[in-house]
C-alpha cells in the first residue's frame, strides 16, 4: 500500500476506512442476528415484529448439550423446584430432559459430533494442503508431459455434482468398510479439497522467483532442501490461505457427512439444524450450536490473519 502523502490522498483514505467499516457492518449484521438469537429466551426467537432488545441468557447453550423432549404441559411447581438449575432452564423452554432407562441424564449428540468435526477437518486439511503444495511445486517447477491436461483433470474432480457421486461413492465405501468411519470422511474431504489446494498453491508458487532456489542450489542445497528451506517459507501466505479455505470447506460439509456416516463418525453440520422437537424448532439452540461451531474456524483464521495478509515479499523483485 502506498504511503499517504497529499491531503487529497488522506481524504481518500479516510473515505476508504469509512466504507470498509460500513461494509463490515453490513456483512456482520446477519451474524450478529444469529449470535443474538443464541442468547435469547426461546419465546423471543421468532416474534412479530422481530425482537431487537432482550435480556441475554445462556440457556440455549445449556440446552444444546442435553437431549430434550417436548412437554405437553408445564411441570408441577414441586417438580420444577426440585429440579437442578439446568433442568429448570429446559422446563422454561417447554421441554424436559430425556433420561436413560437407569435415570441418567442423556447428553445430546453435539459434543461427540463436534469432536468428530475437529478430527476430520484438521486431518483432511493437513493432508490436502500438504499433498497439494508438493504437487503444485512439481507442476510449477518441472517439465511434465501433458501438464495442462493433468491440471485440468485435477480441477475436473470437483466438477461432478456431489449428488450424483454420492451413490457410487457410498457403494465403494461400503465395500472397503469406510462408511461411518473417520478415515473415510478424511479421505473424502482430502479428495474434495485437493483440486482447490493444487490450483491455488500453483498460483502462489508460480509467483515465487526461481532465482531464490537457483541461488540456494548454487550454495550447495539439494533440491529438497531448497524446497523446504526456501520455497516453503516464501509460500507461507499461500499455504495459510489455502489451509483456511480447505478447513472451512471440510468443517462445514453437509451432504456426504449425512450420507456416509451414522452414529460413530458423523460430524456436526447435519446435527445443528435438527432441533425440530415437536413441530417447533428451537431457533435459539440452532443459533447456539452455530455460534459454538463457528468459533474454531474463526479462531483458526484469526491466528493465520497475518499470513493471509502479509503479502508476498518477493513481489518486489518480480520480473
Amino acid at each position: 500500500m502506498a504511503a499517504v502523502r497529499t491531503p487529497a490522498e488522506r481524504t481518500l483514505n479516510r473515505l476508504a476506512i469509512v466504507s470498509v467499516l460500513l461494509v463490515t457492518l453490513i456483512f456482520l449484521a446477519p451474524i450478529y442476528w444469529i449470535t443474538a438469537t443464541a442468547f435469547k429466551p426461546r419465546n423471543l426467537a421468532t416474534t412479530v415484529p422481530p425482537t431487537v432488545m432482550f435480556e441475554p441468557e445462556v440457556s440455549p447453550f445449556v440446552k444444546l448439550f442435553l437431549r430434550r423432549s417436548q412437554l405437553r404441559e408445564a411441570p408441577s411447581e414441586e417438580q420444577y423446584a426440585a429440579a437442578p438449575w439446568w433442568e429448570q432452564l429446559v422446563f422454561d423452554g417447554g421441554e424436559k430432559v430425556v433420561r436413560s432407562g437407569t435415570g441418567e441424564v442423556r447428553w445430546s449428540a453435539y459434543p461427540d459430533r463436534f469432536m468428530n468435526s475437529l478430527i476430520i477437518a484438521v486431518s483432511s486439511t493437513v493432508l490436502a494442503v500438504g499433498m497439494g503444495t508438493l504437487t503444485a511445486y512439481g507442476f510449477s517447477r518441472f517439465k511434465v508431459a501433458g501438464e495442462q491436461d493433468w491440471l485440468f483433470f485435477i480441477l475436473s474432480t470437483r466438477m461432478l455434482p456431489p449428488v450424483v457421486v454420492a451413490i457410487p461413492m457410498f457403494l465403494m465405501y461400503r465395500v472397503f468398510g469406510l462408511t461411518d468411519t473417520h478415515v473415510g470422511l478424511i479421505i473424502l474431504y482430502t479428495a474434495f479439497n485437493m483440486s482447490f489446494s493444487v490450483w491455488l498453491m500453483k498460483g502462489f508458487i508460480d509467483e515465487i522467483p526461481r532465482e531464490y532456489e537457483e541461488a540456494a542450489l548454487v550454495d550447495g542445497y539439494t533440491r529438497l532442501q531448497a524446497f523446504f528451506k526456501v520455497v516453503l517459507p516464501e509460500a507461507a501466505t499461500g499455504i495459510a490461505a489455502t489451509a483456511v479455505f480447505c478447513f472451512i470447506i471440510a468443517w462445514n460439509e453437509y451432504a456426504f457427512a449425512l450420507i456416509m456416516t451414522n452414529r460413530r463418525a458423523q460430524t456436526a453440520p447435519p446435527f445443528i439444524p435438527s432441533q425440530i422437537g415437536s413441530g417447533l424448532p428451537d431457533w435459539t439452540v440452532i443459533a447456539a450450536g452455530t455460534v459454538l461451531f463457528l468459533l474454531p474456524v474463526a479462531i483458526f483464521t484469526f491466528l493465520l490473519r497475518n499470513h493471509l495478509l502479509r503479502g508476498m515479499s518477493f513481489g518486489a523483485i518480480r520480473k
Partner: protein
Amino acid sequence: MTTDVITRLDPQSHAAKRGLSDLSIRNLFIIPTILFLIVFNIFPLLYSLYYSFTDFRASTNAPANFIGLQNYRELLNDPFIWNNFVITAKYVIVSVAGQVVVGFGVALLLNRDIPYKGLITTLLLLPMMLSMAVVGLFWKLLYDPSFGIINYALGLGTFEWLANPDMALYAVAITDIWMWSPFVMLLSLAGLSAVPKHLYEAAAIDRAGSLYTFFRITLPLVAPILMIAIIFRTMEAFKTFDLAYILTSQPTTEVLSIRLYKMAFQEWQTGRSCALAYIMLIVVVAITNIYVKYLNKVKER
C-alpha cells in the same frame, strides 16, 4: 507458463549426489496426488457413465436395461430441464458477478492504510465460515416478511423476498453473494498485496490517473489469482444446491442441482440422473476450459 526445468544440476556436483534427482522429486511430488485422485474418482465416474445409458433405479432389485441414448434424448427434450438450465445460468451470472464486484471492491478498499486490518479481514470472512444449511435456515428467517429483521430494519413492510417468483432467485443470489464475496475478497487481497509498490510509485511520478493505474497496473497483476477465484466460484455456483433448496421452492429457483437431487434421491431414477449429471459435467468442463484458456493468456501477458 513453466517451460523448462530451472538450472539443471550438474550430475557430478555435490548437491546432486547428496539429494534425490529432480526427476524422482517431481514424480514423488506429483504421482501420489494424481493416483489418489484417479483411484478415488474413477469408480464414481465410470459408474455414472455406465448407468447413464440404462434405466437403472438404485431402489429396486430390477436389473438395469441398456437403453442407449434414451435418457439423454429425453432429458434434452424436457422443457422443465431446459428451464432449469436457464435458471442456473442466470443464477451463476448474477451470483458470481456480484461476488466479484463486492469481493474485489472490498479488497481494493482494504488494500490501504486501514487500522485493525487483520481483525477486520477475519470478521469479513465470517459468513463463509458458516455451513450452508445454517445460512439457508437463518436467511429464510431474515427474509421472512413477518419475523424477519431485514424488512423490519429497512422498513420494507411485508415485501416478499422468497415468495415472489421474480424476486426469489435474486434473494438466493444475495445470500450467496453475502456468503462468498469474502472468498473473492481474500484471494484478491493476496493478489493485490503482491503488486510491487514501485510500480505505483512510478505511475505516480508519471502523474498517471488512478483509472489508468487501476486498469494498466493493478488489474493485470491481480488477474491470474482473481481468475482462479472466479473459476472456483463459477463451478460452485453451477452446482449450487443447499441455499436455493432451503430458502425457496419456487419453480423459478429450481436450479439444476435441485432437479438432479430430486431425480437421484427422491425418485431414485439413478440412470437418468447420471445422464443429467454428465450433461452438467460437459457444460462445466466447457465453461471452465474457456476460463482456463483465458487464465493462461492472462498469465503470459
